């Protein structure tokens, strides 16, 4: 084999790998568009006002409408209000707590205790959502005597907490030391420095983390199945079983008469999640440290 030949082979394999990488990366992006297209093209038919104003129809009503060729009556109001209730409660629990823990971890990096907490946060973050469901069931469903929105929000809180702790900690770690030193040098108290200087300066990163955590739990189904269970009416009582959009998708999927609603509810869910992601991106860009 002469030299020019081997150079040609090497160049060719170089080209080949380059195109393979481009091709496989391209293929990896296709499913997103397929999923979006599938959900949008099948979901827009039932994506109307009644989706937001009416509660889930009974299986019987839907069967009759199907037989007459009418669109399925009703919507997913009970799921929308349920999702709002459960997620709001989870935000209420997890955000203040997550902020405090995040601040503690970034302020006491070298302590053994902080390292242990940090390790456990990682552990919680990797926990499968179904296991979180079991825990919320054991903590909140059994003692309270039944399925409830509160139990659902306990599950979502356990999911959100480590994400918020991590993003707060990471953001605060990136702030320059001089911020804190300047505040302290001006005679400000330590609490003041933390709450009036560090938190506002890190606002972008912290807020992005919270938004991403919300968008992550918004679509969670498994833990809610074991805790909030679902309901066919609008419910604002935190101690009663409550539905949520993902729970309704699961119900619709299992009920052949209601299957038309599955796509419009998925479409709504995807829109909400992508808007949250999009706002998070804008916030991250705007308040960059």
């Amino acid at each position, binding site marked *: 084999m002469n030299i020019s030949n081997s150079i040609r082979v*090497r160049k060719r394999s170089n080209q080949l790998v380059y195109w393979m990488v481009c091709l496989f*990366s391209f293929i990896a992006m296709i499913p997103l568009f397929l999923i979006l297209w599938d959900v949008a093209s099948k979901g827009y038919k039932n994506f109307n006002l009644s989706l937001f104003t009416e509660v889930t129809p009974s299986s019987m009503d839907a069967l009759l409408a199907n037989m007459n060729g009418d669109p399925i009556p009703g919507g997913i109001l009970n799921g929308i209000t349920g999702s709002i209730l459960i997620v709001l409660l989870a935000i209420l629990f997890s955000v203040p707590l997550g902020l405090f823990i995040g601040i503690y971890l970034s302020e006491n990096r070298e302590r053994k205790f902080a390292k242990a907490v940090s390790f456990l946060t990682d552990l919680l973050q990797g926990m499968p959502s*179904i296991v979180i469901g079991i825990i919320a069931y054991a903590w909140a469903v059994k003692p309270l005597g039944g399925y409830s929105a509160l139990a659902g929000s306990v599950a979502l809180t356990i999911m959100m907490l480590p994400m918020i702790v991590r993003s707060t900690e990471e953001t605060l770690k990136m702030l320059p030391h001089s911020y804190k030193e300047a505040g302290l040098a001006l005679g400000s108290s330590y609490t003041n420095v933390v709450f009036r200087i560090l938190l506002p300066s890190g606002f972008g990163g912290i807020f992005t983390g919270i938004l991403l955590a919300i968008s992550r739990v918004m679509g969670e189904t498994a833990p809610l199945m074991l805790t909030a269970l679902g309901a066919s009416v609008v419910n604002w009582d935190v101690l009663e079983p409550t539905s949520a959009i993902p729970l309704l998708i699961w119900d619709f999927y299992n009920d052949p008469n209601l299957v038309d609603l599955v796509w419009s509810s998925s479409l709504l869910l995807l829109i909400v999640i992508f808007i949250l992601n999009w706002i998070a991106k804008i916030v991250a860009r705007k308040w960059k440290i």
Partner: protein
Amino acid sequence: MFFAAFIIILLSAGIIFALVSRSTEAFQEYGIIGFIANPEWDPRPATEEYGALSFIIGTIYTAFLALLFCFPFSLAVALFNGEYFKGKKISSVVRSVVDLLAGIPSIVYGLWGFYAVRPLIIDLGLNAQGFGILLSSVVLAIMIIPYASSLSTEFISMVPNNLKEGAYSLGATQIEMIRFISLPTASSGIVASYILALGRALGETMAVTMLIGNTDRIPKGLLDTGNTMASVIANQFGEADGIKLSSLIAIGLLLFIITALINLVAKLIMKRVARA
């Protein structure tokens, strides 16, 4: 603040306590080894007997297959973003698209797998119903691409420039540089990111529940139906009580231990990389 941080400790202790205390009934009845090694899952009252083995095997089967399927794609994406088009505009486009994949809820993946991928498997004549290990691991693979690729991108783009320049100055082509410099240097980081992706795949619930076919026995092959640890809990938790409920929680405890160990290994590898 110290108190807030202490809550994490309480939380973890409470989690372990809740799982352990509620699964003791099953472990006392069957013994720890007996429960893990028993492939029988029989809820009929007369011959009631519960063992986790078929679900453990189903879980490992789907998760590793998913990892195998996702490997070429996520490695390609990582090279695309971390090496070939590093810092270019197209790379941030690819990155955002792949990140959006991570934002899609599990249940929507399940729907899509059921209505779009399942007919494909039926059309190919692989399987009459379409459900099974293959279907769920294909969809799982798509779900974990963002997790596997985003971290390995970081590690590939962290390879020092002077090493790469050294290779180029010796006359290496780009692929030779990647093969002999970038990949070996970033290898432990890449391994860690795949381990984390594996952890994701093991615990994934809804999509798998909707696609795997839900049969309580050891899957015989790629096209057979089965159940994973997560999907059996999701499927049967609602109607369970007594020893069955305890057995399901015991499976949850096992799943928790497995994912915790896997995450621990990945974290240890990454810590070593960071120190080096």
